[in-house]
Every structure is written in structure tokens, then in C-alpha cells.
């Protein structure tokens, strides 16, 4: 984390434009490539606040800027990094960060080594989360690429191996494996989790005759003790087809201290309650297929995972409940088609279905707990038109039709959640 100001994004954009010696990206014979972009978007939802942004009212708090370099000083050695700043609702606040930065040694075609802050290869497109210019849509299918978990899935501090294996007449395989750790102190994921933990105590405290209850999360910290992942991708001898199987997991610890203020009768009281949560993904499987022919790209991906969560409380005015482990089996699938009509126009659409627990797709368990069944799933039909106005300026417009509220935060939507809702997004990007 380098700095924290809005001008970070502007500075990146200015630096990028000044650093570009030509209309094309800078590149010389030593393979030094400098690229960058700056984006401004607008979001409007018919209901529900998305990602703690005021999308229900319409918001321009949707910006991104990046400066990226890659260089290959020696035939087997490559270094690359990206500085990134973004703002999306309460996320990012245009704080300039090292998005990723890697050093790579490719000893052989079959085996290379990568170390640093490495983009995490979940599915086919997770590594493109911060590369709006390199994908057809504004929002990637949320089941495979959940924006609320971006800070956990974006990149990892560690290292791994990669390579290409020839299969003769059967094509070739690409593979990658990573292991590392991750600091989540500044993550939206931590904010969201600790806000939910704090909010969950309001009802039991109110039941103890605490009135006029308010709270603030005074301290929070989070860390992924470890994360691991990898994939094997087969390129069969069918032009444009690739098939990938991937697997990953993570173990995350959150801790927070929440200060509650209330009255008992007319006497003001304050409470400091500490919560410690453990969240683990023992394993996630992702199966992917992509087919390219001419300007057409067809993609389908399927993810299923197991999650384990537990919370331990201390400082409560009632006997703290024992930590119980909650296990869920989320699942997500989507299909996408993108077609580039000309160099200037590309249209795409996808249908994505995600379930909080594949053993409770209809939400019966949620209803039994007094919650809406629509929190068990989210179905998203999205269409995007991308217009590359010229080589350095693009505009995307996107509409979503949602059914369900899984992945939305009830704490961020105190007025309640609508089951059927729409989202309109428009985004323009200048890049070089």
C-alpha cells in the first residue's frame, strides 16, 4: 500500500500518458512494455445497493486506473508489475496499491518459476479482474468472479511453478500452481465480514433490554494464512479450443473489536465485544471451456466449493455461544457468448446461476431461519456492448437482470433486499 488519495488515479493516468512515447504501447527490442488505463463508470440499480455503493440512487463512484510494465531483460527472465487504484462505493477509495508484481524464471518450456505478488488463476479470467480493457464485459460473471471477494482472490504473496507440456498429436498442456499468503487488513472482504458480525449481535443485545443501540467497528484485522491453487489446461488439436480444470483453497482469519453504545433504562452503557472468525475454503473446483473461431468466443465455466466458517465471541453480556462450524457448498455455473463484429464493435452476453449451498438451492434452510428464500441464489442475465472508438478509447454499456439476492449484503441494504432487480452500467476507458 503506497498512498491514499483520490489524485492517485489521476496521477496514474497522467503518468501513463506522459510515459507513453507513441500512440501504441511502449516497447523496445529488450521487450519492455508499458501500458496503462484509466476508467470512469456509472452504476444504477432498480433496487438493492451493490458492493456498498449507492447504486440504487445511481453512482459515479466507479473508477479504475492502472500503470503496468513488463520487461524481459534476459531470455529466461521476466519481471512485471502493476500499480492500481480504484473506487467502487466504499471500496478502494482510489488508494494506490501494488496490484501485483512478479519475477519469473523460465528454466525450460516445461518448467518455470514465478515469485512475488502473483495474480491468482481461478477459472479462465480471474487474472483479468483489473483489466477492463482485456475483456468484453464490465462485470464478470459473479459466481466465478465474485466482486465482493476480489481482495481475497485477486493476487497472492508467494510463488509457484508453471509450464507447457507437448502432447504430440494430442495438442499441449499448460499448467500453473501457486502457494502463498495474503494480508487482508485493508480489504472490503474484512469490512463486510466484520460489519456482518457486529450487526448479528444487535438482536441478542436488544433482547437483553439494551435500547438505542449503536455500534462502530473499532478495530479489524484479517489475513489469509495460506492460499493455494493451480490448473491444468489442455489445448487439443482443435483450433481455438481450450479446456481447463482448476483447484484452489484458502484459510482466512478475521478479528474485530466492536464498540456498542446503548441505554439500559436511562443509564448509558458501553460494551466492547471481540469477535474472531475463521473462514476456510478447503477446496474449490473450477471446470472451464473456451472456444474461439473468427470473432466468436464461447465460454462455459462451472465452480463448486466447500466453505467452513466459525466465530468466537468474547466480552458479551451473555454467555458467549461456543464456536460452531458452519459448512456450505456454494456452486456456480455460467455460459457466455461474445462476438466481435468489427474491430470497433463487440457484443456479449452471459447467463450465470449461483447458489449459496448446492444442497439447498431453493432456500428452505434460510426460510427455516426466518430469512428470505431468495438469499439462497442469484441468477444473472447480462448483455454488453463494447465500442472501441479508437485504438485508445473504449466505451461499454451493460444491463443485468437479476433474480435472487445471494452475495448481496443485508447490512448494506437495511431497507431490505428485492428479489427481482436490474443493474445498468456504463464505463469508458482510456488506455495505451
Amino acid at each position, binding site marked *: 500500500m503506497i498512498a491514499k488519495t483520490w489524485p492517485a488515479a489521476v496521477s496514474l493516468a497522467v503518468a501513463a500518458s506522459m510515459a507513453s512515447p507513441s500512440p*501504441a504501447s511502449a516497447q523496445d527490442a529488450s521487450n519492455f512494455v508499458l501500458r496503462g488505463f484509466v476508467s470512469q463508470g456509472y452504476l444504477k440499480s432498480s433496487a438493492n445497493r451493490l458492493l456498498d455503493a449507492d447504486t440504487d440512487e445511481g453512482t459515479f463512484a466507479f473508477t479504475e486506473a492502472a500503470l503496468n510494465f513488463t520487461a524481459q531483460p534476459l531470455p529466461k527472465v521476466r519481471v512485471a508489475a502493476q500499480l492500481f487504484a480504484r473506487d467502487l462505493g466504499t471500496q478502494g477509495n482510489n488508494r494506490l496499491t501494488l496490484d501485483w508484481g512478479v519475477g519469473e524464471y523460465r528454466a525450460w518450456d516445461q518448467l518455470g518459476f514465478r515469485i512475488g505478488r502473483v495474480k491468482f488463476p481461478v477459472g479462465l479470467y480471474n487474472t483479468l479482474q483489473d*483489466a477492463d*480493457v482485456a475483456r468484453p464485459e464490465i462485470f464478470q460473471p459473479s459466481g466465478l468472479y465474485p466482486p465482493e471477494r476480489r481482495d481475497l482472490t485477486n493476487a497472492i504473496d508467494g510463488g509457484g511453478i508453471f509450464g507447457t507440456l507437448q502432447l504430440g498429436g*494430442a*495438442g499441449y498442456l499448460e499448467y500453473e500452481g501457486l502457494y502463498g499468503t495474503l494480508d487482508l487488513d485493508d480489504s472490503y472482504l474484512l469490512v463486510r465480514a466484520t460489519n456482518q458480525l457486529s450487526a448479528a449481535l444487535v438482536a441478542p443485545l436488544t433482547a437483553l433490554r439494551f435500547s438505542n443501540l449503536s455500534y462502530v467497528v473499532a478495530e479489524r484485522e484479517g489475513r489469509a494464512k495460506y492460499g493455494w491453487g493451480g490448473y491444468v489446461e489442455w489445448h487439443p*488439436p482443435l*483450433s*481455438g*479450443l481450450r479446456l481447463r480444470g482448476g483447484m484452489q483453497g484458502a484459510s482466512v482469519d478475521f478479528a474485530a473489536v466492536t464498540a456498542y453504545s446503548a441505554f439500559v433504562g436511562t443509564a448509558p452503557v458501553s460494551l466492547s465485544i471481540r469477535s474472531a472468525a475463521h473462514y476456510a475454503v478447503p477446496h474449490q473446483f473450477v471446470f472451464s471451456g473456451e472456444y474461439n473461431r473468427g*470473432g466468436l468466443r464461447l465460454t462455459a465455466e462451472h465452480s463448486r466449493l466447500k466453505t467452513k466458517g466459525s466465530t468466537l465471541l468474547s466480552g458479551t453480556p451473555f454467555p458467549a455461544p461456543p464456536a460452531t462450524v458452519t459448512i456450505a457448498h456454494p456452486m456456480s455455473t455460467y455460459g457466455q457468448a461474445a462476438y466481435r463484429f468489427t474491430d470497433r464493435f463487440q457484443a456479449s452476453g452471459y447467463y450465470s446461476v449461483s447458489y449459496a449451498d448446492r444442497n439447498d438451492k431453493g432456500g428452505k434452510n434460510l426460510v427455516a431461519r426466518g430469512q428470505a428464500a431468495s438469499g439462497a441464489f442469484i441468477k444473472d442475465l447480462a448483455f454488453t456492448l463494447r465500442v472501441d472508438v479508437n485504438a485508445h478509447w473504449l466505451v461499454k454499456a451493460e444491463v443485468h437482470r437479476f433474480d435472487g439476492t445471494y452475495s448481496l449484503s443485508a447490512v448494506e441494504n437495511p431497507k431490505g433486499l428485492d428479489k427481482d432487480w436490474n443493474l445498468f452500467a456504463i464505463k469508458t476507458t482510456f488506455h495505451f
Partner: protein
Amino acid sequence: MRIAVAALLLSAALGTVSSPAADDGTFVVIVAASNRASSIKRQELARFFLRKTGRWNDGQGVIPVDQSAGSPVRAAFTRTVLSVEGMGQISAVQNFWLQQVYSGRSTPPPIKATDADVLAFVAANPGAIGYVGAAPAAGGVKVLTVTE
């Protein structure tokens, strides 16, 4: 082996096996005169230019060199060679490199503006491979036959 046969049958059924002649007369593939290779398979050529693989048979590193996006010879090369990876249009190749660069995974080949620049680059770099519009008259490079 079963997988290979199944994939080939599927490929043939979908009519995606390309015609054998890679060199359609609009470009030739060149390497340094000292390079031991005399021919190259189209798939291998595509993987070199997409940096999927990067070693000649003698272990020397491959240094691919591209031409600018507006070049007709690059369009012909892309249509004929890179189409085996599903990238028969320059815009698809550019998007591939955007994905590689912004994910920190790879670096595109250097770009030269003219045939003469490519010839000079290839002649000066023993592991280099490029393509130009016509067979070169100058020394220092040789033409590779592209096979299926």
C-alpha cells in the same frame, strides 16, 4: 492416445483441420542463417509467436519478432498461422496479449515497422524468427518452410 484420436476425429468432424499449405505466398518465415532448422510446423510456429513455447530443438531461446498491427503481412501471417490457436484476426491476437500483459503472465514479441527492420533484427539475433512479405535477397537470414 485415445484422447488424441478423439480430438483429431472431433477436429476433422468440425472441419477445422486447415489446408496443409501455410505459406500462401503473402509472407515467408525467416530465421538467422546460422539456425539449424530448415522447416517448422505451423502449430509450433504459432506457439513460438504466442510465447507458449520458447526453445529451438538445440535448446536456444526463440526470439519472435512481429510486424505492426496495420501491416498486411501481419494480417496474412495471423490469418494463416495464428488461426491454429483460434486467433485468425489481429484484434484477437491483440486481446490475447492484453490478457497476458495485464495478468502478468507474458510479454508480446517486439514489433518492427518494416520488412527491412525484421530482416535486420533476425540477422542480428541467432534465435530470432520473423516473417516478411517476400523472400529476402540479402544474406544473414534464411527462409523456413512451414509444414502442417
